[in-house]
């Protein structure tokens, strides 16, 4: 099958949805013809669809989301880009109090078909203000859906689902995934939210991993397999809704779980997954749960420091061995 990068897969989804539905439009800082997005996801789209539908904005994150909300409740389907996930901090009211709550507060009178795309993640030495992973905040906000594709295939299919849906979706990408290649069908396909992928089946332990960590988990699983340890790797693909059943089913099989996410450990995504298992699959656990996540520090700049705090193949392997 044809291979595309994650970046190109995202762009293809945007492009096809814009062709399909005239109410879909994009807005964000430097997404237009002059820069094409900080990670070039929107390259060529302004040229194809014009500056009205691929709209460069001022550096005003709060208004970007607020404007997208206003457009979403009046018949449009905006896809807003926040250049770096760390900058969602500037738009938390519009995301979490407005976009997330409008459907509820107004008794279901309106929907908010809005997608907010933004990249998270460390690994390119751009320090504390450009490297965070903040998925947990949005998981903790009812009214939002949260997507977190780890492959080009998922990126295209989930983004299409997000754009066609009627709820606000936080669509999280990872900086290191953009250049990654994978098979992407040419045809129009969507991927349902809330259905996890079992990336590798295994018997001895389960690894739950998200975004870029899926790839590190797979590498770790491969290495472990060589050592005679069979690991099952689960990628939830969306965090809200979260495919609890897939997690529980795997734990029932393996009796052990290592949860690998790039966000900070305390009160992060991994805490929720651990809590679900402790609440709903405790009896199947043969060993304590293990979280592999960023220690609770901001992301430092210098390469050796940054590499130290990001979970990696080795720390994952170590954790798996600890639960065996």
């Amino acid at each position, binding site marked *: 099958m044809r291979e595309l990068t994650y970046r190109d897969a995202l762009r293809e989804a945007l492009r096809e949805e814009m062709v399909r539905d005239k109410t879909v439009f994009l807005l964000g800082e430097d997404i237009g013809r002059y820069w094409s997005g900080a990670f070039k996801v929107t390259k060529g789209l302004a040229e194809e669809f014009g500056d009205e539908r691929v709209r460069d904005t*001022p550096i005003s994150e*709060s208004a970007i989301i607020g404007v997208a909300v206003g457009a*979403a409740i009046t018949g449009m389907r905006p896809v807003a880009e926040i250049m770096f996930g760390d900058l969602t901090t500037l738009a938390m009211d519009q995301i979490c109090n407005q976009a997330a709550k409008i459907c509820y507060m107004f008794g279901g*009178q*309106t929907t908010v078909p809005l997608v907010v795309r933004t990249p998270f993640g460390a690994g390119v030495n751009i320090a504390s203000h450009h490297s965070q992973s903040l998925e947990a905040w949005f998981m903790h906000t009812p009214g939002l859906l949260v997507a977190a594709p780890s492959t080009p295939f998922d990126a295209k299919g989930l983004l299409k689902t997000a754009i066609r849906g009627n709820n606000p979706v936080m669509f999280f990408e990872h900086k290191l995934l953009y250049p990654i290649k994978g098979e992407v069908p040419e045809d129009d396909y969507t991927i349902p939210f809330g259905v996890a992928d079992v990336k590798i089946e295994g018997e001895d332990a389960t690894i739950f991993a998200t975004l870029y960590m899926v790839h590190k988990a797979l590498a770790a699983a491969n290495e472990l397999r060589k050592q005679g340890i069979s690991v099952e790797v689960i990628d939830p693909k969306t965090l809200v809704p979260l495919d609890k059943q897939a997690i529980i089913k795997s734990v029932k099989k393996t009796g052990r779980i290592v949860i690998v996410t790039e966000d900070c450990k305390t009160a992060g995504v991994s805490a929720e997954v651990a809590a679900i298992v402790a609440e709903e699959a405790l009896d199947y656990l043969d060993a304590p749960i293990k979280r592999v996540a960023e220690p609770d520090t901001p992301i430092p700049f210098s390469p050796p420091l940054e590499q130290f705090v990001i979970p990696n193949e080795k720390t994952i392997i170590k954790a798996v061995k600890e639960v065996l």
Partner: protein
Amino acid sequence: MPTKEKLIEMYRQILRIRHFEEKVYELYGQNLVPGTIHLYVGQEAVAAGVCANLRKDDYITSTHRGHGHCIAKGADLRKVMAEILGRKTGYCKGKGGSMHIADFSIGMLGATAVVGAGIPIAVGAGLSIRLRGTDQVVAGFFGDGASNQGTFHESINMAAIWSLPVIFVCENNLYAMGTRQSVVMKIENIADRAVAYGIPGVTVDGNDVLAVYEATEDAVDRARHGEGPTLIECKTYRHKGHSRFDPATYRPKAEVEEWLKKDPIPRFKAKLQEMQMLTKQEAEKLEQEVILAVEEAVKFGTESPFPAPEEALENVYA
């Protein structure tokens, strides 16, 4: 100058708001209104003067002090009252309450209780109008206090650069809770801030229905013709405290009295009579109708059932 019909319509609206709000005040005295409440009494000319320029398919966004905006845009008094009382028959099925009323069927895009948060949403509606290619407009209401929020700045700038059909209506009632404008702003006229975005800004007497009407008429006209946004500052005053239990002792007595004299309702009534647009009898008849409608709203609201507890779990997602 508005037509006679428009004039009477605006008079009806300010009366509807006034009587409605006085009733809400009474009801919460009787402990029938849960939570807090921010009354619009005294500011009626703004909502009425602005909304008289709007079509049903035009939009507004509103604030914590939003009953007047809803009513002037044409909302059903019964459903507004029911919502304020937390009933299932309210606009938002009791989920929103006083600070979160919306009626999408008349373009009332909802009130937000986060000060300033509605401003970019109004701009978004403006952008939507532009992208859909209609000739609608949107009026975004907010207070003097809200004009110090970052959203004010970001939003007006965006509307300006994209020349969107938005009328920014700043209701300057001189206070944000207990904070006088002069404590939090060096400038006197908030409309002067329009300069920062290269758009027109006008300051009008917000207790004069006609002044508000005319300023809005110009702004709406420009907006419908693609000439972009306007910032209209309406100087006005709230007659009551900020919220439920506020005795408003931070306001000098003389100031309150002076403003009570400028009450928009008797002023507009006198004006209409002077213009021979409204006879005493007509005025009385109209007021009676309004009183009846408000009473009906109270009856509807108070007799409506509360939502069932489990309904709390509905509408989180579409």
